[in-house]
């Protein structure tokens, strides 16, 4: 078979395309294998106190919700005093860098409590191990925490410490609210070192960190606070979550908007509730009267607004006083200084009115009057026994009245002006000398200008009964209220009389009449006070010009001092030269005068000084009425006679049988050889007296008896016949002479010459 074609030989292909498949598979497998290898985690050991809830191959390690490892095995840890469980955990390779000595592990279990539900996701997913990476050396063995660690301080945001008396229902993770928005949470809480407070660490998210200022106040917003009282029911809760879970809320007081940012090192106080946080300043007040006060209920009021409340009341060991702990509105912070006053207000019903009526309903409360802003701050006070007088700084007029006795006045008694209440009595106390009472009075602002320097106050209490023979009986009362409660009325005679001082001082008169007396107080010294008493009038020409206000013995007991008030033209009366004397009834043969004083009582007569010689308020009364001539207006002359005759004071001086003057007195001349008769010619008739005038005595009647003339009976008038009198005549022409000078002395003739009677000069009379 040589012709057989040689078999074509092809080199046997060792390679077939099919072999690509295993290669691809190898590559894929290799890649998968490498990937599997690269994903192989790092085994670490975590020691747990208990393996409860940890399942091998199931329990994951979760960081920020992302699984980063898984428990592979669990083994008992025999070492150490307490046996634990060591979980071998396979961690993802890429978290290797976080596995440092300070990295913390803890088991997250579902926990359902009133404070909240945590780890809810673990209910379905099973427990997991949470991890919080930290710094340190690389490590492979860890000890698990028994519970979730607090938020690390390194987390951006604000980390604060709050100090609270009690934890309340707060818990880790409890929310922190600002205007009911959750802005943070509670990180952890521990007892303080002295075990008296709870320190709560709070984390505020960075977005809201600037909401916390230096004056920010935190309060426990847990639960619902129900405040029911007469003014309504107040229900307050931060949010439904905080009702269940507890929470903290905070706010910065309105008046502290500019508060600087907080210093995170300084702890804040955690107030028990919103109200406590609002009324945040603690103040201690020592109360002597603590009746009806209830800790936690009793409010602290300022002008009817609650500014705080009584937090605690502790009776002192001696049982006479109690120290109260108040918390006050932060608004009051600036005013809690020296001078701030506290007192207890309770209902008091008196004739002066009902005070503290609101306390009847609300219960007793503590009132506060702020001190002056800027004084030394103080936190401990002693309460006043009763309400203090009105604050001098309150608007209106503050003034002081002095009086001898209080009458039925009391704090709160009204000040009446035309029977309108314009103010009230704020206080009364003894003056420094204990002789007078000082009454503090406040006039409301709108009536402020009713009072000026000329204002006169009187006690309008009760009924004034004034009666007299002449005026009948008057019953006066300001108002029914003042009738019962007492009151002070005033009147302002002059519209413009500026007040002297910031706090004016006035005298409080006993009644209106006393008050309205104007004029000047004078003292008059008399030898005896027979018949003189308070109210005795001082008269001038029959008109009352003043009144005696008091009758006192002088210090040396030698005389009596009359205190009197000159109400009419005091500037004319109370001046040097004025004369006072007592007018008494005189009944005698010689003279009967002043009989009216038998009925009306004695009075003081005054003869005002004719010339202005300066003011004088202290006088010595004359024994008897002075010579009128000296003081009375008119031409005063002196007549020189041999005998007095029947002349006496008051007898008329006549010119052409017209009375133009009178005798004002008589006396012996210096040498006792003559009688000097003082006469006073009325000013109108003064020109009639000339140096050539002739005076003669017209007393009695003269009988000229002559053989040739018969008997001539002369008499001036019947009046002069009885009373006696002096007549004069002035010659005509050259003999008339000059006008008489005052005190010029003329001879008094016993009888006239006929020539005189025919003298008839024409003399113009004065006006």
């Amino acid at each position: 078979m040589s012709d057989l074609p040689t078999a074509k030989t092809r080199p046997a292909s060792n390679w077939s395309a099919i072999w690509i498949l295993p290669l691809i598979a190898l590559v894929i497998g290799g890649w998968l294998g490498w990937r599997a290898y690269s994903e192989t985690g790092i085994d670490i050991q975590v020691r747990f106190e208990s393996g409860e809830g940890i399942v091998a191959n199931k329990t994951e390690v979760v960081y920020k919700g992302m699984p980063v490892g898984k428990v592979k095995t669990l083994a008992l840890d025999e070492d150490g005093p307490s046996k634990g469980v060591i979980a071998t955990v396979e961690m993802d390779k890429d978290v290797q860098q976080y596995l440092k000595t300070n990295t913390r592990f803890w088991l997250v279990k579902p926990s359902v409590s009133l404070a909240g539900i945590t780890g809810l996701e673990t209910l379905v997913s099973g427990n997991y191990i949470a991890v919080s990476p930290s710094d340190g050396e690389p490590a492979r063995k860890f000890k698990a925490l028994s519970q979730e660690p607090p938020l690390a301080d390194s987390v951006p945001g604000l980390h604060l410490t709050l100090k609270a008396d009690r934890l309340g229902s707060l818990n880790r993770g409890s929310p922190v609210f600002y205007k009911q928005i959750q802005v943070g949470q509670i990180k952890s809480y521990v007892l303080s070192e002295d075990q008296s407070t709870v320190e709560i660490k709070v984390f505020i998210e960075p977005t809201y960190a600037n909401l916390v200022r230096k004056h920010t106040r935190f309060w426990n917003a847990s639960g619902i606070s129900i405040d029911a009282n007469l003014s309504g029911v107040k229900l307050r809760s931060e949010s439904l979550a905080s009702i269940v879970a507890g929470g903290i809320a905070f706010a910065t007081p309105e008046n502290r908007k500019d508060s600087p940012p907080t210093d995170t090192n300084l702890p804040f106080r955690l107030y028990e509730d919103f109200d406590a946080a609002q009324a945040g300043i603690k103040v201690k007040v020592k109360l002597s009267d603590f009746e009806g006060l209830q800790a936690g209920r009793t409010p602290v009021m300022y002008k009817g607004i609650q500014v705080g409340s009584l937090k605690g009341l502790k009776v002192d060991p001696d049982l006479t006083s109690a120290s109260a702990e108040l918390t006050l509105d932060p608004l009051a912070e600036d005013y809690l200084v020296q001078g701030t006053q506290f007192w207890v207000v309770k209902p008091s019903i008196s004739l002066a009115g009902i005070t503290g009526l609101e306390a009847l309903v609300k219960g007793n409360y503590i009132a506060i009057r702020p001190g002056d802003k800027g004084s030394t701050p103080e936190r401990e006070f002693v309460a006043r026994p009763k309400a203090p007088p009105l604050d001098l700084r309150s608007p209106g007029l503050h003034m002081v009245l002095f009086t001898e006795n209080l009458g039925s006045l009391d704090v709160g008694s009204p000040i009446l002006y035309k029977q309108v209440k314009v103010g009230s009595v704020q206080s009364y106390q003894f003056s420094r000398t204990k002789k007078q009472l000082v009454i503090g009075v406040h006039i409301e602002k709108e009536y402020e200008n009713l009072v000026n320097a000329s204002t006169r106050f009187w006690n309008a209490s009760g009924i004034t009964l004034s009666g007299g023979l002449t005026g009948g009986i008057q019953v006066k009362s300001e108002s029914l209220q003042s009738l019962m409660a007492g009151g002070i009325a005033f009147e302002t005679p002059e519209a413009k009389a500026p007040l002297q001082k910031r706090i004016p001082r006035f005298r409080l008169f006993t009644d209106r009449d006393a008050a309205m007396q104007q004029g000047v107080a004078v003292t008059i010294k008399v030898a005896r006070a027979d018949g003189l008493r308070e109210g005795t009038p001082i008269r001038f020409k029959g008109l009352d010009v003043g009144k005696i206000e008091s009758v006192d013995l002088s210090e040396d007991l030698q005389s009596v001092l009359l205190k009197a008030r000159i109400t009419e033209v005091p500037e004319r009366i109370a001046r040097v030269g004025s004369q006072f004397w007592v007018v008494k009834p005189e009944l005698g043969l010689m003279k009967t005068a002043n009989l009216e004083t038998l009925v009306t009582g004695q009075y003081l007569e005054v003869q005002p000084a004719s010339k202005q010689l300066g003011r004088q308020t202290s006088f010595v009364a004359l024994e008897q009425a002075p010579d009128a001539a000296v003081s009375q207006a008119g031409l005063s002359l002196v007549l020189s006679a041999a005998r007095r005759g029947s002349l006496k004071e008051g007898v008329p001086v006549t010119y052409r049988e017209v009375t133009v003057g009178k005798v004002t007195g008589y006396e012996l001349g210096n040498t006792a050889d003559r009688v000097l008769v003082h006469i006073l010619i009325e000013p109108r008739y003064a020109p009639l007296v000339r140096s050539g005038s002739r005076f003669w005595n017209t007393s009695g009647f003269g009988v000229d008896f002559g053989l040739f003339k018969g008997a001539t009976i002369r008499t001036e008038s019947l009046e002069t016949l009885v009373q006696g009198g002096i007549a004069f005549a002035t010659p005509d022409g050259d003999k008339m002479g000059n006008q008489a000078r005052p005190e010029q002395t003329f001879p008094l003739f016993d009888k006239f010459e006929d020539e005189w009677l025919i003298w008839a000069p024409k003399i113009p009379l004065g006006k």
Partner: protein
Amino acid sequence: MRAIDAGILICGECHELNRQDPETDEQTCTRCGALVHARRPNSLMRTWALLLTSAILYIPANLLPIMTVNSLGQGSPSTIMAGVIELVQHGMIPIAAVVFIASILVPTFKLVGIALLLFSVQRHQPLSARQRIIMYRFIEFIGRWSMLDIFVIAILVAVVNFGRIASIEANLGAVAFASVVVITMLAAVTFDPRLIWDNTESDDDHE
């Protein structure tokens, strides 16, 4: 007596008998025009290659998670074996048995069986032709059942899709496993069963 000995080639598609033309390398079916071979060229080689591929893929198929069951956000990837163990732990032993047989036993058996078949064909040992054909038939028969697991996964992925509450996703292990199944099936197809008798001592061993 083999067809190749009688110079007859059988068309693999229309089963027409063609006389072998020794002149040509590539003979076509006289009836349908398909390529006809006495024996499939490089059958052993290809089968080996596919077998090797599937053997390699068999490793990740079993080691990598085949699917992840996400339930309420918590995913737990599981491999085939872990799934079986889990089923057993839940007391679902019949299902576990099915999964175990379909997913573990069958592919393993296929891999080993094909390897044994190839080995014995090449080395004439250690199996008789009869054993080999039984083996071959068995492998052909069970091959498709291995896809059961993949179907289950596919159905589960499609059906269990409740978003965050529960969802199932296939993992690379499923891909590898499916590849193993497909490639072993291909390997079984590539293997020319006529080779079983080529290397036997007598034709009628089985008779």
